[in-house]
């Protein structure tokens, strides 16, 4: 009889589920039908209700374009949250630069916590050499994990400088030959001017008389010549040692890589009236090179 009782007791113990709740809980659940209690780790994250504040946008006062390439525009955003820096959503900090109808967006990266409520973020955008000079506005936005309201501060400003820059190719102006007393003798070369900066305005030419290399008393006067944007000898009349704006010319800033004429201009040259002069070489050696300028 005792053996039967002991065997029964062992069987009961073995059929009770082995859980951390223990035997009492198991009995309770069986008797009351209610779920037994279990200890468990509970993590409650309390998020603040105050929204983020974009306190400052710190930028250099001005940036220079770089000839033919891009310029990095780096600035910092200081954000704070009364509920602490841990409430700031670091991934939400973004910035935008705008000028007229052009804008660029970027994400900012957390640099460091300045104090328990304030954090520092760095942002970078790039501007092309042909982006127009002037003031660009910076706005920065962000949100926090509790309030989730997106807050924007658009008080940032920087100046993008003017870059006057060009290539002129070739660096010679040549005529195959011209006839003494002839008219409208077109040059064999055309100067292609690539605007590698962001200047937007006309092109000028400083010219000099061409002096005979053998007999320097004879000249082809600059006043007998013209330069224009079309190959028609109807361009701007030149004058010795005077910078003349070439009528109709434009620096036309733009992306040279497009190859659609953006950022390019061509200058043609013409000897409108060749004087009655001797046959020799006439060049710019004596009085100096002609200067194409912005």
């Amino acid at each position, binding site marked *: 009889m005792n053996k039967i009782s002991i065997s029964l007791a062992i069987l009961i113990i073995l059929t009770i589920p082995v859980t951390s709740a223990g035997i009492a809980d198991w009995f309770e659940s069986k008797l009351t039908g209610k779920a037994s209690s279990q200890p468990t780790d509970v993590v409650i994250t309390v998020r603040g209700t105050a929204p983020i504040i974009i306190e400052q946008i710190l930028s250099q006062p001005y940036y220079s374009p770089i000839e033919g390439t891009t310029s990095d525009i780096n600035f910092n955003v200081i954000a704070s949250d009364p509920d602490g820096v841990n409430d700031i959503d670091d991934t939400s900090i973004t910035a935008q630069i705008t000028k007229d109808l052009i804008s660029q967006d970027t994400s900012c990266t957390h640099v460091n916590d300045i104090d328990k409520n304030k954090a520092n973020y760095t942002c970078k955008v790039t501007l092309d050499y042909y982006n127009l000079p002037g003031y660009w506005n910076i706005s920065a936005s962000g949100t926090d994990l509790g309030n989730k309201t997106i807050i924007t501060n658009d008080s940032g400003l920087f100046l993008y400088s003017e870059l006057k820059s060009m290539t002129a190719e070739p660096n010679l102006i040549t005529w195959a030959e011209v006839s003494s007393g002839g008219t409208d003798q077109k040059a064999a070369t055309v100067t292609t001017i690539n605007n590698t900066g962001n200047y937007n305005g006309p092109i000028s030419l400083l010219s000099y008389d061409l002096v005979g290399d053998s007999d320097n008393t004879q000249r082809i006067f600059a006043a007998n010549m013209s330069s224009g944007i079309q190959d028609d000898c109807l361009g701007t009349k030149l004058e010795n040692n005077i910078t003349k704006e070439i009528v109709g010319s434009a620096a036309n800033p733009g992306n040279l890589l497009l190859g659609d004429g953006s950022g390019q201009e061509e200058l043609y040259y013409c000897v409108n009236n060749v004087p009655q002069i*001797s046959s020799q070489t006439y060049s710019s050696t004596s009085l100096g090179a002609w200067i194409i300028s912005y």
Partner: protein
Amino acid sequence: MKNKIKFIFGIFLLVALMGNITAFGVSSPYWTGNPLNIDRGETMIVELNLQNMVGDDDVNVEAKLVSGSEYAKLKETQFLVKQKTSNTFAPLTIKIPRNVEPGIHKIKVEFKSIADDTGGMINVGTGMDVSFDVNISENFAKREINYILIGGIVLTILIIILIIFLTKRKKKKRK
């Protein structure tokens, strides 16, 4: 029969020189339409940035102040702008006297690449004019206090007082 004026260059020379390009650039924080606002008595250095990022050769650049010499001064006028660089600066010092009338004055600096004479007919160089207005306000710039000078004077006076004091004390002891 008209004379034929033949120029020195032949087809060979022309082709050989066609590939050459002349290039450089100047960046300025002030330009026509974006004036420099300055107070009377104020001095400012405007850094004009010379660049040669596109050309394949170093470029010799000559600078000349053609307008505004009464207020502006270029420290240097010759610059070697090395190829693939954008860090050459031409400092332009602008110093406005305190007794000048407020108003707008023009500053213009011409930069020219000094072209090598390649022996062709017309050599071509490039030039960039940096031109901007200086808007002199009615305000006067605050005079800068030279704390080092003031500190030096105060220290000298204290040393003199100390020497006098010590000398008198010695004399009293001798008596």
